[in-house]
């Protein structure tokens, strides 16, 4: 039963590990750029989760063709998770842009991105 849990859902285990790595980076790393890298890895985990949930073997793209009977929904992949993730990727890019803009502001003011040093200089 346990081997089934690991082997059949190995992609989800991979995603969980990815999200933990991202979370670790955000919390434990002292450099602010590394924190942002952790944030991106965390977001990628969620994007992969959606994509993994839409996997369907022996199915085709959701475009109607006469060769595949459209009465059989099982023959088509659900396109919605992919579409949603396109939006989520765009949101992620925007977040990254704002985050880097903030880092530039912080660096211009304190000349460092190392968190303990930053907190020291802010006193």
């Amino acid at each position, binding site marked *: 039963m346990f081997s089934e849990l690991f082997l059949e859902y190995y992609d989800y285990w991979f995603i969980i590990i990815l999200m933990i790595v991202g979370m670790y980076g955000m919390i434990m790393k002292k450099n602010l750029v590394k924190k942002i890298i952790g944030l991106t890895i965390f977001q990628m985990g969620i994007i992969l989760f959606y994509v993994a949930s839409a996997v369907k073997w022996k199915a085709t793209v959701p475009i109607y063709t006469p060769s595949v009977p459209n009465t059989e929904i099982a023959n088509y992949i659900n396109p919605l998770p992919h579409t949603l993730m396109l939006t989520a990727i765009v949101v992620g890019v925007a*977040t990254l842009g704002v985050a880097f*803009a903030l880092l530039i502001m912080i660096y211009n003011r304190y000349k460092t991105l190392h968190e303990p040093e930053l907190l020291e200089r802010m006193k």
Partner: protein
Amino acid sequence: MIIRNLPAIIPLLFLAAALLIPLINLLKKNSAFSIAVFVSLLASVVSGYGLYYVDTNETIRYSFGGWQPPIGIEYVYDRLAAFVALVINVISLIVITHSLKAVKEELSDREMPYYAITMLLLCGLNGIVLTGDIFNLYVFVEISSLAGYALIAVGEERSPFAAFRYLLIGTIGASLYLLGVGFLFIMTGTLNMINLAQILPSINETPTVIVAVTLMVSGIGIKTAIFPMHGWLPDSYTYAPSTTSALIAPIGTKVGAYVLFRLLFFIFGIDYFSRILPVGDLIAFFASAGIIFGSIMAIAQKELKRMLAYSSVAQIGYIALGIGLANPLGFIGAVLHVLNHAFMKACLFLIAANLRINEGHSDISKFDIKLGKKYPWTFAAFTIAALSMIGLPPMAGFFSKWYLVLATIDSKAWFYLGVILLSSLLNAVYFFRILERIYMKKYSSDEIKEEVVFAGNPNKYEGGLSLLIPVVLLAAGIIVLGLFNASIVSLINRMIS
């Protein structure tokens, strides 16, 4: 028929304004402020009419691009959404009207981008309220948050770091919510809120749905700053520009509370989160911890804006407590407190802004009777807002606390009753501390000479009518809302019937 398009009009108004402000500014300099005021006035009028329409007629459902729900994205304009949208737009109108001098003072040459991003923030907040699609909600949460990070980061010297911390925590919150949406979508195959509410009762005890609820509530809890997840709030509110604090503190976190209303009361249902899962108990527990913690931290602060920030943590606790109690009275108290707290906090933050513009500081230890005499109207408004926060009738704050107290009695939660009563006492401590300084604190003998000079030179308008009128208006609003609370409560009652 324009009324059928109402749900789409309000966010699109702000989105169009966000794009138009930079363009029009190329042709005509310094036009950003007037466009922002005009658009938020228009949005307030439209959402006021919308509330009247949906209350007397029926819910407006607008499907984008003609795609019928549940396939397409749908906007639902029901009584709750209309009510919260009206609160957002009226508060933002008042705060933006006040902002002219504050923005000039604090962000001399960055006026245009500031107003453009403010419009984007309001587009996001209105979108969150009006959308009927849980994924679309995520997108609007991110729009409003990203605009919020930018608006916070242009404040005092330490503000970029506060904004960066908020960004990290806020993105985790939004990501957790997105993950929860994924679980729900896998289980149900739909993202439409009304459709979800129909499908969920048959599968709501499966582990997947339980995980989804946990993720979504904790994600939104971070955005709402419910107690152990409030860490980003005090720094962000303190170091942000005055206008940003006055805009985000009253309505930003309230919209998070609105998402919790929508999720728990309308999608999952009262029975589910109070009887099947202990989500309500957990929220109520953390909320009461937040109420006590926020009030005690507020007492310890020496700076007015920081004190108000911690008091926000406590006040959000009241709203969350109303949600967690999971009975109709708690719902009334929570929704009423969204309205009342928006008025009180906007009024108090604007007063802090006025003090910073006129006096250059908002340091509580420097407050004395001289300041009180110099700004009689400002501090009259402050007193009204403070008494309302403490919960004295007939101020508005009393009535939301009254319904919360009734809700705790209704569900026999005596512990929470004690928390509300104790926190009123703590509120009294930190507000009377200031009132005592302003109205009673004697000054030393050499200061009296200054007073004599000052008496011959009365400051008639306390730093200008543009700063004073919004504050007085909000203070009057607090009393009016208190006096007319019966009709508001009956409106809230119609939301859940």
